[in-house]
């Protein structure tokens, strides 16, 4: 079971969208996941205890510390594009 966190500025709107979209893609790829969504501020502290963080491209550098400790950070350009999400999951998680 992959532990995933979706993050955005306030943890309300965009992270919810990311959560709905990645849920769909993980299901398609047959990967078991548990997804939470929250604000970047809170996610930053929690990230090291998760396997993967999804956020907008512009927030990726916030998670440098967690990335150094092995959490996979996936930055998205289009939060709603299932194609982009799938490509990045395959590249950064499946074929790691």
């Amino acid at each position, binding site marked *: 079971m992959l532990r995933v966190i979706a993050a*955005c*500025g*306030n*943890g*309300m*709107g*965009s992270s*919810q*969208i990311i*959560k*709905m979209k990645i849920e769909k893609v993980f299901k398609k790829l047959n990967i078991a996941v548990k997804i939470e*969504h*929250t*604000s*970047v*501020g*809170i996610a*930053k502290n929690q990230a090291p205890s998760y396997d993967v963080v999804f956020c*907008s*491209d*512009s*927030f990726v*550098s*916030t998670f440098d510390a967690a990335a150094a400790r092995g959490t996979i950070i996936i*930055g*998205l*350009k*289009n*939060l*709603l*594009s299932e194609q982009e999400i799938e490509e990045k999951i395959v590249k950064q998680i499946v074929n790691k």
Partner: protein
Amino acid sequence: MEFLLSMWGFFQANILTKPAFFVGFIVFLGYILLRKPLYEAFAGFIKATVGYLILNIAAGGLVVTFRPILAALKDRFNLEAAVIDPYFGQAAAQAAIENVGRSFSMMMQVLLVAFAFNLVLVIFRKITKVRTVFITGHIMVQQSATALWMVIFCFPALQDTGIVWMLGLLLGTYWAVSSNLTVEATQDLTDGGGFAIGHQQMFGVWLTSKIAPKIGNMGGKKSKTLDEIQLPGFLSIFSDNVVATGTLMLLFFGIIMSILGPDLMATIDTKYTVGNSFFFYVLEKSLTFSVYLAILQLGVRMFVSELTESFQGISSRLLPGSMPAVDCAATYGFGNPNAVTVGFLFGALGQFIAILGLVVFKSPVLIITGFVPVFFDNATFAVFANKRGGLRAAVIITFCAGIIQVLGGAFAASFFQTAQFGGWHGNFDWATVWPVIGVLMKNLQYVGVGIAIIALLAIPQLQYFKNKAHYFQIAEDYDAYKEAVGKE
């Protein structure tokens, strides 16, 4: 018959008028309709209801924390004050509604009618020219709350049913029309990302997309873009919402309470007695606002995630060709990462200068910068402005937007009397479009509501009239649109 009536009476007294259970009930019903198992429906009910009860505690906490400061400001300077932020606005609206003895549960009913009406407008898109469905749940809750108070304020004698239907139609029209207004600019920014904006500043985004190219070419010299500048590293701490709100609250309430002074605060606030450290009292009090904001957001997140998912499910099942209108932050990935910070910075500068202006010109209402408008509105404007008019447009537009948010918010908090409860919505559309609608409603009553709805509905017609050939294509198939426009 008697039995049915008493059942309805029970339902009305215990569920329909109790927002926490009504929210839970809606989620429960949604799960049953989606043919989910009963135990999942039960879990949804619990989460939504608990989420709402959390929200209630936090909204009350914000108002109570604010009360001694508001009282002291009134006492010493005969001033009212409002934080311009949709969460503060929602809490203030709820307090105002309950203060006149009306049920806040209408907020959820308005939301459902408005969402349904947005769907209707898209179903008849051949006539209405509306292409977008607004699905941003937490925004829909906030706007339903504020708009509900505006209607109760303008129509104090109107019965609940009348309020719910009238406001449902008005708000649904606003959701549909305003998000539809952002289709062209958002598709251009995201190169056919397939979404529009359903947030709090759609009219501002449209204005930005029209004004930015003109500012970008001002004086015949092309502006620099954000890629060419480097920002100081410490600014990155403000992308953390807890830090940003805490800092803003500390800055504003620190100044305000220092001016009010320890003696006055001790007489008004039982939490402080002279002799204790005033510095730490101010620190704790200011940060308490961040505490309740964080709790409020936790509550909203719990019951809104259930709603948003079902809204998205309904709209994509019912209307496969429609475009979702989502949170403005979905555009941030398409802008330069600096755009978000620049927007926040110059928006804040505009707000601070406008607030100083309020003090200098002795405005009866003091405005306090809240995190959401200054960050999310202005970051969004900066992303769009930078794309179309470079750094110069991003700086000028967000600075002006900051001023507008404060002045519009000050007018609205005073006119609609939410300053008594310390808050107003404050985002761009709620500092411009909605105060105008409110003044229309107050002065012209039903005629005003009619004018507002008709004027809103005319907007997509005008958009269509200007771009008949590609109006639907730009939303439905962006690649084909680009090809077609390229050929012309």
